[in-house]
């Protein structure tokens, strides 16, 4: 997951992640991408569109 510079670490993405894979730190998001099923709900709810799926 690409976390854009303007992410404000509000944690809304973590709240909707159905697999509990996002850890919200004060100034960092940690994604457990190995377990991610690519549902993209975290991208959908972000209030400032700060998340983008990495192409790989």
């Amino acid at each position, binding site marked *: 997951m690409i976390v854009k510079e303007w992410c*404000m670490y*509000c*944690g*809304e*993405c*973590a*709240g*909707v*992640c*159905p697999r*509990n894979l*996002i*850890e*919200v*730190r*004060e100034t960092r998001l940690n994604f457990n991408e190995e377990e991610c099923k690519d549902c993209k*709900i975290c991208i*959908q*709810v*972000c*209030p*400032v*569109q700060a998340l983008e799926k990495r192409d790989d």
Partner: protein
Amino acid sequence: METDILVIGAGPAGSTAAKHAALAGVSVIVMDKKSEIGAPKRCAEGVSKEGVEKLGIKPSERWIAKEATGVRMVSPNGTAVNLTEDKVKLPEAGYILERKIFDKYMAMDAGRAGAKIMVKTLATGMRREDDQVVVTAESMGQELEIKTKIVIAADGPESRVGRWAGLKTALKPKIMESCAQFEMAGVQMAEPDCIEFHFGSVAPGGYAWIFPKGDDIANVGLGVLTTITDKSAYEHLLKFVENNPATKNAQPVELNIGGDPVGGLLKKKVTDNVLVTGDAAGMVNPLTGGGIISGMMGGRIAAQIAAQAVSDGDYSQKNLKIYEKLCEEELGESFKKYLKAKDYLLSLSDEELDTIAEAFQDSDFETINTAEMVRKLVKISPKALLKLGKLF
């Protein structure tokens, strides 16, 4: 490190839980991942006076930015209906807080009551050991383990702690409002003593608000459901600010964002050794999105039950289960009504909202009671009967 009760999250719900647990005589640690409790704020900062009083908190000018005496509701075409507190009981109207001070103040109260406060401390995991729980955490580069009899999870809408314990705290996007807010100066409100709500397509699935903070300062924000709009909350906010007469010449000094769980109370809020409270447990008024007072009410109940369980020496789900019943009585019943009201409100088109606002614009709310209000509403909007039923 060992404690009787570990509270994770020092927002209003967590600090209230920590304070009341400490007052009950058990040992309490409260941890928060942030370096500054209360910052950044993530809400419009409105609370009811009745709620503050019910919690036994003495209002302080240190954390009250402004007293609001009414509500102004604005339909999509700009028609406004004004309600004042002397005429109608208003949720979320009363005080506009300075959350950065209020949250610290509540945490300080917890500390004074005897709770140990740990800032910049992030819970990273949890495991059961015998009949207790070990929470792993990180604080300023150090890894910690805290053994506790009970965990009160007050870690907000992004709660992970409840899920570590096997509770289903994850939220679906259809019940998570995506919110964005500016604190602005130069706001020219029509009624500077009223909190203001704007309904309709300005905020799909939610509403926009202007909450005065004194002088020309206000929180200007909105919440949307991302399941019914392609734009982000921030994009909707920019448009709202640009088009609203009160804000088009105002300037932002702060941007806040966050999620607001508006689906009502989480059904299962306890398991062995763990209680979930505050936003993490859905303790947010589904209609207004306000969760400060309700979260604190939940935190207080959680503390009472947890402290009793420590005293009993029984931290099982069975012994903690009463927490769910008490929360249901205190919050759940009214939330069910607010959910219905929200469902009705969100079913209305911009035109229907305008028609209703125009019909109520000149109502004398001094003489109109709730039943009359609903009768009038049903006359204008027949689907109110279907959606609201015997709500009031």
